[in-house]
């Protein structure tokens, strides 16, 4: 058992020690003596505190110490593992359009999926298969289930693996990460290398056959129209223009204090039928409208609509009119992106051996201790501990009242006996 916040346990121990020490202090009514001139004694509380050599109210002490320790243990968030296994495996299975043969994928991934602590299917997004991973893998053999429009993202997959590793770290000594993928060029983005560096060990890469590159998929943009032209119903004018710090189109980012005067029309978004990729753009079938560029707050800044001969891009990004922004390299890159080919580029070229070597790495398996622990507000044991603490608190209250009632009755009896004797 480990504690996520052991400081609370130490504090609970200190408080419990203090309570034990307090129970050596006896606060009770002192011995009774007769004094005829008692009326001249000033009125003060009828209690005297003395230090005794043994515990007073031992059962009350037990309940109080138990209550404090239960609360301290609950706040310390214990994590109980029946056992820790040597290696826990995380299997990432690529189910994007880059996979050439689903059957081969299922065959290659089967041995890694069986016995894995976690299985993740990834394409543009990543989803963990909690139950029936093997059955789900078998289901991939059916071509009809494949979303050939979905582009894979190694960055997304690695992020999912890191999150799962934080959850599994306390139940294993080492973590094995297995990636079953064709490792196509389009699945890598600018953040992939940095995210890979967060994994503290070796990655086992299982390469499967990739999809064939389609040579004529790239289409050029037919035209670019601006929002203030009103040529399309994709934009409505804002009542109050605001400013935004930048805009992004795929990997091209432009930082500038843009003044936004246009906002997407409601029906422009409803016509979109694609799924969002990690690059912020969306894939769309011909005729569909997809978001081509977004402002930094996520609002669409440009749409791309497929046409018979290519595509049309409707842009609500005002051109900078002051300063040398249009001369900056990031603007030139952004402008080139706007004029780039229609649709998402598809590049099924396999990643280079050099990239793969760096991706796999030569370290041993990732030690679980080096994986950051997931921040957990509670652990499974906390509600039980708090429940027990509540029961003990009620018991302490009942016991304390019972002691007080008994003491009062005893004093009343003594008073009656004394008055009768007088």
């Amino acid at each position, binding site marked *: 058992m480990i504690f996520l916040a052991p400081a609370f346990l130490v504090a609970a121990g200190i408080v419990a020690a203090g309570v034990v020490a307090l129970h050596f202090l006896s606060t009770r009514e002192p011995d009774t*003596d007769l004094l005829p001139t008692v009326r001249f004694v000033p009125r003060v509380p009828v209690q*005297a505190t003395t230090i005794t050599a043994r515990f007073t109210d031992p059962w009350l002490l037990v309940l109080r110490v138990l209550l404090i320790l239960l609360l301290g243990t609950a706040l310390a968030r214990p994590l109980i593992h029946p056992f820790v296994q040597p290696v826990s495996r995380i299997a990432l299975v690529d189910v994007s359009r880059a996979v050439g043969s689903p059957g081969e994928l299922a065959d290659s991934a089967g041995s890694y999926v069986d016995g894995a602590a976690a299985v993740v299917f990834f394409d543009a997004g990543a989803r963990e298969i909690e139950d029936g991973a093997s059955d789900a893998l078998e289901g991939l053999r059916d071509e009809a289930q494949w979303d050939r429009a979905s582009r894979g993202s190694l960055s997304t997959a690695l992020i999912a693996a890191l999150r799962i590793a934080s959850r599994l770290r306390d139940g294993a000594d080492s973590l094995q990460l297995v990636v079953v993928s064709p490792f196509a060029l389009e699945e890598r983005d600018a953040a992939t290398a940095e995210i890979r560096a967060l994994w503290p060990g070796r990655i086992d890469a299982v390469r499967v056959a990739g999809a064939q590159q389609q040579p004529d998929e790239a289409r050029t943009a037919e035209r670019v129209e601006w929002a203030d032209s009103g040529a399309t119903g994709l934009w409505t004018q804002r009542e109050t223009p605001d400013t935004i710090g930048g805009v992004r189109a795929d990997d091209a980012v432009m930082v500038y204090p843009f003044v936004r005067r246009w906002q997407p029309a409601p029906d422009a978004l409803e016509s979109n039928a694609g799924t969002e990729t990690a690059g912020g753009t969306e894939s769309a079938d011909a005729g569909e409208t997809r978001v081509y560029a977004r402002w930094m707050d996520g609002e669409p800044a440009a749409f791309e609509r497929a046409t018979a001969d290519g595509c049309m891009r409707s842009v609500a990004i005002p051109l900078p009119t002051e300063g040398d922004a249009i001369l900056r390299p990031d603007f030139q890159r952004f402008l080139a992106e706007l004029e780039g080919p229609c649709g998402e580029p598809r590049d099924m070229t396999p990643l280079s051996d050099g990239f793969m070597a760096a991706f796999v790495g030569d370290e041993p398996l990732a030690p679980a201790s080096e994986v950051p622990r997931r921040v957990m507000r509670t652990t499974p044991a906390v509600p039980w501990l708090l429940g027990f603490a509540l029961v003990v608190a009620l018991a302490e209250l009942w016991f304390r009242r019972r002691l007080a009632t008994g003491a009062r009755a005893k004093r009343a009896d003594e008073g009656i006996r004394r008055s009768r004797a*007088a």
Partner: protein
Amino acid sequence: MNAADGALLDAVRSLRWPARRKAPAGLAGDHRSWMRGISAEFEDYRAYRQGDDIGKIDWKLLARRDRAYIRLSTEQTVLPTMVVVDASASMAYPSATLEKWHFARHIAIGLASAAHNGRDPVGVAVASANGDGHYLPARNRRGIVHQILALLAGVAPGGSPRLAPVLDTVARRHPRARIAVVSDFLGDAEEILKQATERSAAGREVHAVHVIHTTEMSPSERPSLVVDPEEAQLKRPLTEYSRLGYIENFGDWRERLARDWRMAGASYTEVVTDAGAAQAVRRVVVPPETGSRA
């Protein structure tokens, strides 16, 4: 009679209790002497008035002055003394030794003995919880002191008897007697003082003997819960802090009590149990300005 009683009687054997007040001056011959054969001491002459006893005329002075004068003299007369003793529960302190009660009892006996030594009739009345069976009228017979001693020995202090009715009864039965009240004045002190004021204003000699136990003057420093023996519900904690307050309050009350009794025209003597009973008796019977005398 135990050894302490005997020692007390021996200590006060030669003690007398002189009256502190003279009998009011009046017509000659109105106050009859109780004792036969006592010679009158010449005090003064007064012109003869119609109605005076002719036997009192000084004939020699008449021959010299050709005018009749009568002789005035101070007549030795007896002064009955009644000792009223408080036997309430507050006098039964400490409960194990009853030291306060025995001290009060000895004072009463000592006062009775001093009065009897001056050939004054003496009696005792006890305010006790078990009725009025403890009463001896003032007598001058031999052995009266031992009778008083025996009566007091049979008294068990307790309860909350009121002293004022006993004082009133004594005063009515003995109109001219000197009254000594031996008590701790923790009961009906106001009523007692009121009666004493009335009797003193009427010319009677009244003495208040305030009996205090040593522990009441300075209670133990051990923290305890003290209870009134006459009122069980009255209990107060006696701590280091409250002890100082108690000593101050008790002292203030004793000062007020002394002042009130003296303003009433009575004598007030405070006696503490750590002093000897004989010494306490001597302080009562001997006026402060004359010092002690046998």
